[in-house]
């Protein structure tokens, strides 16, 4: 299996390179892998995830995602790369002025799909996350768990190569969390999507084989 993500001697830093968060990290993630990244608060879990979707450029080393080296990527190439990613946030990051259906098809809208296709896909995706009856509602009319399901549906909209999730169940109760884990397991299993989840705690109900990385003292280590 080919690597979807590959890091070699990766160093990430804020404050114009002065504040190093991750240093000399090397790891490979293959197509279809389900990866948990854990670590103490402030260890750099979210920073690593940000660098994977190009919000933070590596200070040193190589970080290749979907065949693109993020250390030397143009904004146009980054834009294109992001259209192959599904990103899920702890705070959902839905567009509150848009309906649930419109939020879900944002990646399709960006890719220039016709309104008919968008409508069909919105219906299919909302059915998949069991929110069909909420299609015309606005995000703020939904509970936190429902909003995160919208976020998952949006991440799945364009059958992404990789799903990056930052504490996707951080704000949810156990029931809602289990629903989200189910959806992400299904995506990985059925679509062979690579899934990377940053979380402070690996869910106990998780049934799929997974890989586990810990970030500690600026290093990224795989737990076997």
């Amino acid at each position, binding site marked *: 299996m080919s690597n979807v993500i590959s890091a070699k001697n990766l160093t990430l830093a*804020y404050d114009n390179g002065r504040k190093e968060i991750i240093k000399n990290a090397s790891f490979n993630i293959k197509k279809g892998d389900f990866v948990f990244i854990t670590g103490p608060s402030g260890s750099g879990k979210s920073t690593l995830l940000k660098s994977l*979707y*190009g*919000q*933070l*450029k590596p200070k040193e080393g190589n970080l290749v995602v979907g065949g693109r080296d993020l250390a030397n990527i143009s*904004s146009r190439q*980054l*834009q*294109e*790369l*992001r*259209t192959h*990613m599904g*990103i899920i946030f702890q705070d959902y*990051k*839905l*567009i509150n*002025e848009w309906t649930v259906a419109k939020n879900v098809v*944002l*990646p399709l*809208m*960006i890719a220039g799909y016709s309104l008919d296709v968008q409508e069909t896909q919105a219906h299919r995706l909302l059915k998949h996350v069991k929110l069909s009856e909420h299609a015309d509602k606005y995000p703020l009319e939904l509970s936190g768990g429902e909003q995160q399901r919208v976020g998952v549906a*949006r991440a799945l909209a364009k059958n992404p190569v990789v799903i990056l999730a930052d504490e996707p169940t951080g704000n949810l109760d156990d029931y809602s969390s289990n629903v989200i884990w189910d959806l992400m397991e299904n995506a990985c299993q059925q679509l062979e999507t690579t899934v990377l989840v940053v979380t402070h705690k690996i869910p106990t109900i998780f049934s799929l084989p997974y890989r586990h990385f810990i970030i500690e003292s600026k290093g990224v280590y795989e737990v076997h």
Partner: protein
Amino acid sequence: MKFIKNHLMFILPLMAILLGIEFYLVFDRTTDSYEKGLKEGYTMLVVTKKPVTLQKLKQLNPHIATLEAIKREQIVSEVAQGVSKQSKKEILAALPYFYNVGLDSYLGTSALEKIKKDLEKDSNIKRVETFGSSYSSAYRLFAFIKFLLKVFIGFMGIVSLFLIIKQMEIWKYAHRERMQVMEIFGAPLMLRAGVLFKVAIFDAFIATLLTSAVFLYVKFVWAAQSGIDLMMQKQDDLFKMTDMAILLGVALLLVIVAVYTVVFSSKGVQE
């Protein structure tokens, strides 16, 4: 209320620019004939010993464009009233030739002096009168007023453009989360800035309509009732439908420049 305030903060500076432009257009149209009169109505007086041709004068100075002889008989009949026919004939024989000489363009007083010198080099030419001071002062006053108007409109335009860009930045801030989410999912700049374009173009139409309404009111209501002759005579020039197209074009251009300025000035999410 906040919605109206936000739009007014954009529409009012845009209207200030459009009002300035429309005011200049109206000023230009209504004073056009006056300016033409000042420019084209000007002639210098040339007195010669023998008749002269336009060709000859053009050889002396290329700025000379027209030549019109003043009827000598008319001069004699005006200055020699009650004089015998014979005496009139003698006066006519002794009288030099008078010409009104027009120029090809508006020239400054130094250029007029040069023309005068060039002409006076010819021994046939007895005298050249440029009437330089009155010509210059009238036209210069007009040109100065026009220049001041341009400066004022230009200054107002710059200040208003800054206000428009400032308001655009506020809108961008208000929509920053939406734009960030779209950016993270790979939306191109035009799609991300779509919301700003929509609002700005809508306001450009509103500002154009309001500005046109002001001038239509001036044209059909105020000017008609003003009792000012110039206003009543030039009522048609106060607003033309083509002005609306010009104003809309300018308004759209300004808002597009403002959106691009604001959107391109941000670095995006890349750190």
